[in-house]
């Protein structure tokens, strides 16, 4: 299994071309190199809900294979995948019953288990506030901030994905951080 460093654009293009030429191993290689990032990204969005993150990760790839013909190569494949993952999460957030499993431990959100440790409670609270703050952001700001800090995408990749300038992406991130700070302050 090939894991490890992120692929650059040309490497991704090569794998994609190989996959489109019928090489399945190329697709597996792509999956190996991207699934962890996608999972991490969705994990944070799903309030540390592991099961939900797994489900959404799978759903993301399913949608990606279906939409692969429409992928125009304007951005990196991984970036495009992040966008699908993000939209998948949004769909869930608007229709949460779709992905609820019977023994869904994630439904009981991971609140502070260690009642005696104030630091953990505060950390948890902080994370929850941040998450809520992020989810309350407008869509374009939310994607930019999550892709950058949770998806670990570069500003250039995000700009290419969103078809805006790098300056515009940075501007969105500044606004997002300001909104998050305001939101967290208000929640205290």
């Amino acid at each position, binding site marked *: *299994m090939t894991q490890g460093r992120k692929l650059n654009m040309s490497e991704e293009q090569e794998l994609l*071309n190989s996959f*489109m030429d019928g090489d399945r191993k190329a697709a597996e290689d792509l999956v190996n190199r991207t699934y962890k990032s996608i999972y991490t990204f969705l994990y944070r969005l799903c309030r540390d809900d592991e099961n939900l993150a797994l489900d959404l990760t799978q759903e993301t790839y399913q949608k990606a294979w279906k939409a692969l013909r429409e992928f125009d190569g304007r951005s990196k494949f991984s970036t495009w995948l992040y966008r699908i993952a993000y939209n998948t999460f949004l769909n869930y957030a608007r229709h949460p019953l779709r992905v609820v499993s019977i023994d869904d431990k994630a439904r009981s959100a991971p609140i502070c288990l260690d009642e005696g440790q104030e630091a953990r409670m505060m950390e948890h609270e902080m994370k929850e506030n941040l998450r809520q703050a992020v989810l309350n952001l407008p869509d374009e700001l939310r994607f930019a901030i999550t892709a950058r800090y949770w998806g670990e995408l570069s500003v250039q990749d995000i700009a290419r994905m969103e078809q805006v300038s790098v300056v515009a992406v940075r501007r969105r991130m500044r606004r997002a951080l300001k909104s998050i700070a305001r939101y967290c302050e208000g929640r205290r």
Partner: protein
Amino acid sequence: MRRLTKREIKAWLRKWSVPEPPEGLVEKIRKEIPEGLSPGIKRKDYLPMKARGIRLIWQVATCLVIFILGTAIGVLISQKFVTERLSIRQTPINQLTSKEPVIRQPVPDQNGVSHSEVQQRGLQKSESPGEALLQQAPQTEGFVQASVKPRSSFDLDIQPAAFDLVKDHIEKGKLPPSDLIRPEEIINHFNREDVPVEENDFYVRAEGASSPFTSDSSYKILKINMRNYLRAVAKDASVEIEFNPSVVDYYRMVGAEDREKGNGMDIVPRKRDIRANEALTAIYEVKLKPELLPEDPVATLKLEYSPASTEKEKVKKIHTIHFPLYVLPERKPSPDLEFAAMVAKYAQMLKEIQNVREEDFQSLLDRAKSLVRDIPQKNDLEEFIQLVKATEKLKKEARDEKAGLESTIQR
């Protein structure tokens, strides 16, 4: 708690720890990799970075070129606009040189000016009336020394109503008061000469003859006729005559002294509109220097006016026309000039009616009747003759009344 800074939020976002995904996840995903994708489908070629850079440079260059062109066009248009907003003084569009005779040899008998008339004008008695005039010039008789003040302007504001008032007085049996009499208006009333059609915008004709006011042969009268041949009003028109100091010693305008200043020294050309086809006449009396050559212009007339503009035209143009007036070989003065000289003399007599004698009126009438055959404006001449007769009658009545009054007092 204090508000979080951006750096702190970034740090929180980054350090959000996430456990490793479960091992079965990647297998599940790989199983779902489809088999059915058609081989050979190529994704669309994405424009490489280098080409994008070139495309960006091309776009910037295009914008720059458009900007420069637009600026250049804007500058050109604004320059044209600014130029037209300024008053444009065109080069003289009419350069008429009067070829009409300006001076003729004096014929004392035809002038009918006697030595006694000079005396009646209040001048000093002298053997030579010309010298007397010379002594009197310039202040007392309105003569101006050409070397001191070569430029003269005559008033274009000829009001026909003023002559009508004078005529009205005479027809009602009263001599008009002296301040009502404006000789230039009388001259213009009787000088509606029939001038030929000209292609130029203005017609200017100058003619000279011996002065009827003196027997000195060096004194001449200069009659200047102007007519507006434009089909529209010549707006803000003004006329200036610049006498040649090497030819002209003194000059004065007959009748149209500067009423504002009173001495004719500081005349500012007054402007007024000249209607289409309107004619104007001015008469100057000049004393020439003894030595002059045919190629020496006696004076130059400068006419300035603005053609009437349309509503769309916001630019004022000024046309300046120069008419040099030359001394030419003498010949017999035209009937028009003779008539103008008579009218000028009559106007002068009317203004100084107390000094005029009966024989002066008779002399004038004789001269007028002699022109009946030759002059084209027979109606004007007839009107003039009637006016002179009426004035003579009034003068006679005034004299008789005065004589009767004196005899009553003596008794």
